[in-house]
């Protein structure tokens, strides 16, 4: 079990992916495993590769860590494992508290719904209750600065407006752990500054954060500690 002052604990984490479509293969695997579950999972078979190899990371409560590395180094896979979206091939992921993955803002938006309706949608996906969303509605709209367009369907939004709304919903989540993937680069300069300021404020309020960004300066500003990844290994 996770000790009280730890937020995220990753122990000897390995994640294997298959290069080709693994669909029928994995169903066959499931059937095979069902019949004889002894198959050695730590060996690589044809066309498989390790997306993450032997990752050990502890994140304390209220700590912000940055993940830095070239494309394909396993940063996003790591976030997915913390978000409980995918499961490790070997090793353990322990997470203490609610996770809000601010990955690709607006993933839950539906183009036919208005901005306001999408706030309900995305808020609920991030784990807010309906009454919580209602009380925060004004504040979410105010932060996004798109009051005039909030009752318009989001398919008519510009990409900047889209991001503003998505970011604004995300930072209003009550989750203790925030996973931030390249989303601080949103909108125009003024809004970007406002977002960074908000993230600093959330950090001060004791939220745990895992940040992925290619912007070194930003990373140094927000993260307490940076983990360098390359080809699935911590450097």
């Amino acid at each position, binding site marked *: 079990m996770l000790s009280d002052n730890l937020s995220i604990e990753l122990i000897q984490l390995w994640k294997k992916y298959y290069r080709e479509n693994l669909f029928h293969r*994995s169903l066959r695997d499931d059937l095979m495993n069902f019949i004889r579950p002894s198959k050695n999972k730590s060996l690589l078979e044809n066309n498989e590769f390790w997306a993450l190899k032997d990752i050990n990371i502890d994140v304390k409560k209220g700590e912000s860590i940055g993940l830095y590395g070239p494309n394909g180094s396993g940063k996003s896979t790591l976030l997915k494992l913390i978000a*409980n*979206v995918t499961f490790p091939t070997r090793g353990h992921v322990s997470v203490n508290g609610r996770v809000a*993955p601010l990955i690709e803002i607006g993933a*839950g938006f539906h183009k*036919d719904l208005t901005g306001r309706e999408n706030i*309900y*949608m995305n808020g609920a996906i991030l784990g807010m209750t*309906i009454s919580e969303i209602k009380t925060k509605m004004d504040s979410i709209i105010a932060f996004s600065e798109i009051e005039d367009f909030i009752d318009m369907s989001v398919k008519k939004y510009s990409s900047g407006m889209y991001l503003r709304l998505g970011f604004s919903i995300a930072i209003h989540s009550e989750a203790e752990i925030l996973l931030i993937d390249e989303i601080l680069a949103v909108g125009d300069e003024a809004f970007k500054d406002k977002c960074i300021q908000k993230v600093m404020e959330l950090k001060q309020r004791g939220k745990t954060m895992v940040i992925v960004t290619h912007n070194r300066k930003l990373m140094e500003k927000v993260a307490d500690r940076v983990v360098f990844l390359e080809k699935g290994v911590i450097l």
Partner: protein
Amino acid sequence: MIQISIYKRLKNYKDLMLVFIWREFTIRYKQSFIGILWAVIQPLSMMLLFTFVFTYIKPVKFSNYPYVLFLYSALLPWSFFSSSVNYAVPSLTNHYNLITKIYFPREILPLSGIAVAIIDFCIASLVYMVLLAVFRADITWNVLWFVPLFSLLVIFTVSVCLIFSALNVYYRDVKLATGFVIQLWFFATPVFYSIDKVSLKLKLILFLNPLTFIIENMRRCVVEGRGVILWQFALELSLTVLLFFAAYRYFLITEKKFADVI
């Protein structure tokens, strides 16, 4: 045991589920002129078509009461089943964006589609009541069977949707097959005909389809005033509940790989 796990899984996501249901309902009829009337148009137009065929093209007498009632009483549950399946099967793959990014119990997606189909069912039931009044059906106390039969239909539909939506994540063939399988299934189910007059051997074959029992009885209990044979109901219920547990288990096992496979 499994009931507890369903409850535990969905308890914290009650609001998400409500929002999903509301959203499905809203976007279905957004930018549509007649909106909610679509819920009644499908069973109504099928009813008119079949009535036309069996009255003018090949007159057949299926019942000693208006064929319109005979047909609508079965089209109503059938439409619920087919629209649930049609929505639920691609529901997981349609939400690729969410599944690969955020965790929530995945069954919320197919289940919210079924919930919308229940709303449609209620709306279409209003038309049913009008038809029953217009054609002066003899309603008896057996009409109360409608509720347990509908519950049975919901459990069966949920099981089918869980299995095939999960399978569709692995094999898109499922989605491609849905259209014609549903069509075949329609003819294998006593919607526009009745099993009353078929031979016992054929009856037994038709009863392999769980919808035969449910839909045939949903018609009998309302428009014909007949009751349901208790042991048959108990048997169908236990089989359906077993199917449901198996389906849910299968869903939970495969769910862990959705994000990797989708």
